[in-house]
């Protein structure tokens, strides 16, 4: 029930925003076509502006993942996390989900396909992947677009919130499943 309502809202969210923007523009006599193309010009500029920031972050993270350090850290923490009912398979997701969204989704797909729908690891990793956003990517894109290089406390807050999200996911899954 909740799911189908949400699906309908999700489906209609984008079209309604478009109708709202264009209708309001028309009523206020905004020259729609000219204004649109004027704003759209920035699309290329913004995308090109973020390339240096993306290269810095994505190359760093690609090297980090290729070094095998994530698997190593996972093995080190596995015995400790086992006390909290965390399956060893899900540990790479905890580390990788702040670094790379596609990698987190990849690990989750592997777990889901290998361990099957009934495994606790599948459920826990589903919740962990579904509730997170790739902190480093968002940081590179959002600050890169306006040329911010001094992050101040932004990364600290992002990573702390990611950590709280992991703790919450483990606790909630222990309760629910």
């Amino acid at each position: 029930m909740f799911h189908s309502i949400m699906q309908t809202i999700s489906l209609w969210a984008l079209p309604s925003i478009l109708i709202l923007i264009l209708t309001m523009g028309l009523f206020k006599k905004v020259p729609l076509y000219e204004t649109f193309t004027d704003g759209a010009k920035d699309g290329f500029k913004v995308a090109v502006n973020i390339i240096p920031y993306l290269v810095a972050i994505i190359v760093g993270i690609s090297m980090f993942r290729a070094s095998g350090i994530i698997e190593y850290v996972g093995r080190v923490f596995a015995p400790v996390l086992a006390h909290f009912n965390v399956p060893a398979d899900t540990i790479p997701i905890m580390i990788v989900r702040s670094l790379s969204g596609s990698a987190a989704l990849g690990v989750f797909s592997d777990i889901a396909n290998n361990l099957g729908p009934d495994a606790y690891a599948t459920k826990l990793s589903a919740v962990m992947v579904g509730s997170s956003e790739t902190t480093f990517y968002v940081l590179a894109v959002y600050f890169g677009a306006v040329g911010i290089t001094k992050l101040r406390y932004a990364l600290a807050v992002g990573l702390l919130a990611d950590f709280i999200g992991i703790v919450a996911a483990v606790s909630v899954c222990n309760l629910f499943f």
Partner: protein
Amino acid sequence: MNYIFYFLIVISIIFGAVNGKLSDVVNAILSGAELSVKVAFSLIGIMAFWLGMMKIAEKSGLITLIAKIIKPITKRIFSEIPEDSPAIGDIAMNFSANAFGLSNAATPMGLKAMEELQKHNKDKSSASNAMCMLLSMNTAGFQLIPATVLAVLIGIGYKNPTEIIAPTLLVTSVAFISAIILAKVFEKLWKPQSETNEEGENVS
């Protein structure tokens, strides 16, 4: 960030060498650099589309209208930004798009908000409190329905995939609210922006 950048690259090389994966690490430079450009270029079209739409929304006064409606909430969270700034409306649209899982639309809206916030920023190379707050709201990734995860679960024949939604929503809400509270706490504890500016890099 300087330390993180150093750490990511140097530790990866050392660990990769010890691990016998040095060639993988070196190859990752090329694949990572390629991927960055691919990601940036794949954004151009959708970015242009939504930036165009947002321009219309701005000119018609829609963004200001949205900003007025959500003023009671945003004036607490973004206390430094003038209440009638288009940034507030952009932030509201960015948040709603994220919540409904429209990340394609959310990113251009968020970037537009960042540009508006940059106009109020004293030091153009360092992140203002409002920028850190907007970033925290986005890195926490609040989303009502985890559509991609549900698709994978349905794909493996998960009997009741919707049972994942409630726990995920709970977790994402906890993370999102924590991010906002943390950003507010750090705002008080961290050195004000002008000092950070003179001393240069302070963030690890």
